[in-house]
């Protein structure tokens, strides 16, 4: 079988090894890093999930959505509301964020996925604007800019109870979800459905003439993408123990695009690299220069000038030739 998927078999291990290296690093850093740096890594891991989710949309089915902040915010509020009003535990609250992502992705997807590229971008951007404004205005529900704080319930596992207030527990809790999301998404991408996703990226028209209902597949990819973005939002709200209308802001729409572009589209692990670099940059460079984003913009341009497919895409293409 390895002969048949020759190129793929050759290609996959690099991505796989990069993932393993990252996960091992994350695993070790949890116990070795000081507290401040540890919370930074927690952020990176949460962003990685958002980036992977987004990659399913842009990197695999070529849908450049600017509306993913809607799902991020929906996931965060899914967690907050379910804990505040329904008094559910931690894991059920995350499933609520998953469902919130599903609902919002279905609503926005059914309307927007049919549209061709530029119109899709515009309509998803409009969704971001609408939901951001709604979240800002409906202060009675969302708390507006001030947001809502939550008291975290204990994490009850089979062997006992853990508290997310312990940063170490929080760290490995998030890491577990990163691993889980990666395994699920990797599985999806390598399945028959994933193959159809990739071929849709390559040529939508040809896939249609191979007998596939392109709209349905793009919608499924969009919904899955939205669900994992929502999961990320939920984890972020749990980590901060807080959520506000800011979760719907444009920041959360544009950042995943940036992570995916830096790291490499269509690789799942690429966005991890992007998220890590971006977070490090934000944390350390912003301390000594307010306009650090200008510098970061230049770096993005340089990376894309050297390799249109980002850092991981560059490594893969070097390995192939």
């Amino acid at each position, binding site marked *: 079988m390895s002969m048949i998927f020759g190129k793929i078999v050759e290609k996959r291990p690099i991505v796989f090894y990069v993932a393993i290296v990252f996960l091992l690093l994350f695993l070790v850093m949890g116990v070795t890093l000081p507290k401040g740096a540890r919370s930074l890594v927690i952020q990176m891991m949460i962003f990685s999930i958002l980036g992977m989710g987004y990659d399913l949309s842009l990197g695999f089915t070529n849908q450049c959505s600017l509306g993913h902040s809607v799902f991020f915010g929906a996931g965060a509020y899914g967690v907050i509301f379910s804990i505040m009003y329904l008094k559910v535990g931690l894991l059920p609250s995350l499933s609520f964020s998953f469902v919130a992502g599903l609902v919002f992705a279905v609503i926005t997807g059914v309307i927007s996925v049919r549209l061709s590229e530029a119109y899709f971008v515009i309509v998803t951007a409009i969704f971001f604007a609408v939901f951001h404004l709604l979240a800002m205005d409906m202060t009675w529900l969302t708390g507006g800019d001030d947001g809502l704080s939550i008291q975290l319930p204990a994490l009850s596992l089979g062997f006992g109870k853990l508290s997310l207030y312990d940063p170490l527990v929080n760290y490995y809790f998030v890491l577990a979800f990163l691993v889980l999301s990666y395994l699920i998404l990797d599985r999806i991408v390598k399945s028959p459905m994933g193959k159809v996703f*990739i071929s849709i990226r390559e040529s939508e028209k040809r896939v249609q003439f191979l007998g596939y209902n392109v709209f349905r597949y793009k919608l499924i990819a969009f919904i899955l993408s939205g669900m994992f973005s929502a999961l990320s939002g939920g984890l972020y709200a749990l980590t901060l123990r807080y959520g506000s209308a800011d979760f719907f802001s444009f920041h959360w729409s544009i950042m995943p695009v940036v992570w995916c572009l830096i790291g490499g589209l269509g690789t799942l692990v690429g966005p991890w690299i992007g998220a890590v670099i971006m977070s490090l940059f934000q944390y350390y460079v912003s301390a000594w220069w307010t306009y650090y984003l200008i510098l970061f913009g230049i770096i993005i341009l340089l990376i894309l000038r050297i390799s249109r497919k980002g850092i991981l895409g560059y490594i893969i293409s070097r390995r192939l030739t």
Partner: protein
Amino acid sequence: MASGANFLETLDVTKRFGGLTALDHVTYAVKEGEVRGIIGPNGAGKTTFFNVITGELKPTSGKIFLKGEDITDLSPHLICQKGLSRTFQLTLVFPEMTVYDSIWVGVNLRKRWPWNPVVSAHHILDVSQRTQEICELVGLTEKMNELAYNLSYGHQKVLEIAMALSTEPSVLLLDEPTQGVSPQETDNISKVIEKLSKNMTIILIEHSMDVVLRLCHVITVLSEGRVIAEGRPEEISKNEEVQRIYLGEVS
């Protein structure tokens, strides 16, 4: 060979783009197992005819039947599922997918769960077996692991045919399969088509008269959206009007 009822049939199909009439009351019938050629000067409406049959464009008026079933208003993917597959004049392949994977996607359509999100694609044995068979049939076995954009134009044309084949069609529409291809590769492609014609109905748009005369049982001549002649190859090559409009330009 030709037998039985009409397999694919168009009734009075007209397609207008604004003031331009691309197809003018085209009535056309193909019997099972036939190899049909469509020739005509540039802009005669040949590709538009394919686009209308395959559902990419909806006809302004008229009906299209496949095996007696009205397919006029179906969308392209449903028409493909009913057994009608096509290639494109300008190759439309998946540039960053391997030859194997490109064909794999089409073969997978006929399996029980084409949308299966769980099973690893490597492990579906009947699909990979059929994919290899198709690669062998069209002679792409050696190129199986090449990315499509690394292929020569001739091989991309063959890949187009292989992808069209992968959905197990009963009617195959080939849009200029030998256009822009070296003589040697043209020979190779017509051998492939000849091999396929034993098992399926083929409609071929082609500019190269050699290929058309060699492969087709019946040739239809289109000009300005109208059928101006239809008949066996030897009749067509003698028809005076055809010579004036089409062949005359060449000789």
